[in-house]
């Protein structure tokens, strides 16, 4: 399996999957550039794993084509695709030891001398001392690394990872995130990583595709997705957003001026993904950490040109690095504000009248026709 570097992209064109009357994945266009670390992010049941399995060949697409480089592999069975998978539960063969698990792919392709390559892999995943163990004698993190080694030894064009860190505890997960990122950089193989953990996706991936209801909501670099979400789902699923219902008042130069609960807010026209005709409704978004909080008495000290919204603190919780406030205002109730604990203003307690102010450049605009709370984590899901 020589690496055909030219055009090793994964391209999905018009790919979809339906089970009876249920559509798991709507027709989808997706290109994963060669050598990138690509994450498919979404809540459970959003179609991300189905998409991954269609690339692996474990699931047959209802429509569409899967390309690896220039080659159409749609009709190839999984064992004929230069693609390997790290499964969610690792799926290590319980009757084989670590060495034989890792050598499995090479042996099936008729390669006789595997020891050297297996040793190299064991070293890459730092499991040299465990070569003779059976999978059930390893910890979760070690099993996970065996699963990665077993896939990588085949030098696949693409490595598919299906929630590979889901079964690990938080601390180990952080450690393995860095480990996987290191391995990816070292071997330079394209990784497609499926996860429901937005932090994991943002830490590891170069490009993230946020999926919801069998569709890709938005695709981009983590910072781009976070700073400039195009839908309420992305705004809420990646971190927290304050979404304020507003009405377009006018355009002034590059900026858009909107009114919300009596306040005039400005936002860059280029950061608005909604129609901007005067009188039109839209949702104005701003991240909680971009907002500064001032007591109403200090309103005069706020610099000109900043967006401001008045309100009253209803709740505050001390987190350590920051304090999180919930503020009710005429523009919207339950606005979140994260204040760094640098100089704490003792007047900022529940009941205090405050002004929220932020740089208009940090404001984004969304189409008001969508559900405002799409992608908000339900209480039972919250970690």
């Amino acid at each position, binding site marked *: 399996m020589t690496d055909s570097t030219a055009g090793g992209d994964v391209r999905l064109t018009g790919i979809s999957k339906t089970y009876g009357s249920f559509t798991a994945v709507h027709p989808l266009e997706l290109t994963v550039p060669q050598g990138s670390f690509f994450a498919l992010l979404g809540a459970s049941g959003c179609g991300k794993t189905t998409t991954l399995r269609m690339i692996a060949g474990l699931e047959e697409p209802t429509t569409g084509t899967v390309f690896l480089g220039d080659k159409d592999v749609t009709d190839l069975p999984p064992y004929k695709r230069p693609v390997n998978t790290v499964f969610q539960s690792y799926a290590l063969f*319980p009757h084989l030891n670590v060495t034989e698990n890792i050598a499995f792919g090479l042996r099936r392709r008729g390669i006789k001398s595997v020891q050297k390559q297996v040793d190299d892999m064991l070293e890459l995943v730092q499991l040299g001392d465990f070569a003779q163990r059976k999978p059930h*004698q390893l910890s979760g993190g070690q099993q996970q690394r065996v699963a990665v080694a077993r896939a990588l030894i085949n030098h696949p064009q693409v490595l598919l990872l299906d929630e590979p860190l889901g079964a690990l505890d938080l601390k180990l997960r952080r450690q393995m995130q860095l480990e996987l990122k290191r391995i990816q950089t070292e071997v330079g193989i394209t990784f497609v990583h499926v996860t429901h953990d937005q932090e994991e996706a943002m830490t590891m991936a170069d490009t993230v595709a946020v999926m919801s209801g069998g569709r890709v909501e938005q695709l981009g670099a983590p910072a781009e997705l976070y700073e400039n979400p195009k839908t309420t789902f992305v705004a809420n699923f990646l971190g927290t957003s304050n979404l304020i219902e507003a009405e377009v008042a006018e355009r002034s130069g590059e900026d858009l001026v909107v009114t919300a609960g009596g306040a005039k807010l400005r936002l860059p026209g280029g950061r608005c993904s909604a129609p901007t005709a005067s009188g039109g409704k839209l949702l104005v978004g701003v991240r909680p950490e971009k907002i500064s909080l001032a007591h109403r008495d200090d309103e005069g000290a706020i610099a000109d040109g900043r967006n401001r919204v008045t309100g009253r603190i209803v709740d505050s919780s001390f987190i350590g690095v920051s304090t999180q406030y919930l503020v009710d205002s005429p523009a919207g109730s339950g606005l979140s504000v994260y204040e760094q604990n640098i100089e704490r203003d003792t007047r900022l307690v529940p009941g205090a009248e405050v002004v929220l102010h932020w740089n208009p450049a940090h404001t984004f605009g969304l189409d008001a026709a969508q559900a405002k709370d799409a992608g908000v984590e339900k209480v039972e899901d919250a970690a």
Partner: protein
Amino acid sequence: MSLMPILKWLRRNFVVIAGLATLAYLILPNVVVMVFSFNKPNGRFNYSWTRFSTDAWKDPCGVADMCGSLSLSLQIAFWATIGATVLGTMIAFALVRYRFRARGAINSLIFLPMAMPEVVMAASLLTLFLNMGAQLGFWTILIAHIMFCLSFVVTAVKARVMSMDPRLEEAARDLYAGPVQTFLRVTLPIASPGIAAGALLAFALSFDDFIITNFNAGSTVTFPMFVWGSAQRGTPVQINVIGTAMFIVAVVVVTAGQFIANRRKNSAKA
């Protein structure tokens, strides 16, 4: 000497005593079989201890027709095991892996031979064979044995297949193993303890069976039938020799199996 210390000792060792008593209950009949294989009875019946002798061990086939019936029983048990294991394994996989019409009905029908009184089934089978004009003998016995062994194999294999992660086979396919390789390298090795358990059960059941065999054997005589028949006229010591030999073989096989499993575990740890 007071009673209290004895009671105390009894209470402390109650589990061990109960365990040993149960074990004795299980093993005593086998011990009797073994001991009486070294007997030299007066007359034709081997029911009372006379004196020690190894005559029967030196000449195990000394009784007319006995070794012939033994060899027939072993052959039937062998083929019945193969037949029931192959069919039963396939049925078990089909029942666990696939959703098809009447799956539930087949799932319960499979247990019918276990639930049906053996005598009734034996008589019914004979009726069936006679109506079909079948020649009673080796083949009718074999067909009957495969039939009643099947349910046991299916039960044993099904339990194993149900606990198997289907992702393992997906992983094999993902790692360049075609359908045949996946089955031989992953599915079969993982299911093998269940299949082996089913096969052992089938062998034991078939070798042992008297009622169904007796009805459907025609003039053919299997080992259990021979023992039954000879018990009316006198029991040769050689029957105990064969019984003891079978027992020893079984114990050796089980011990060896456990020894190998243990060694594998230890070598994996080292």
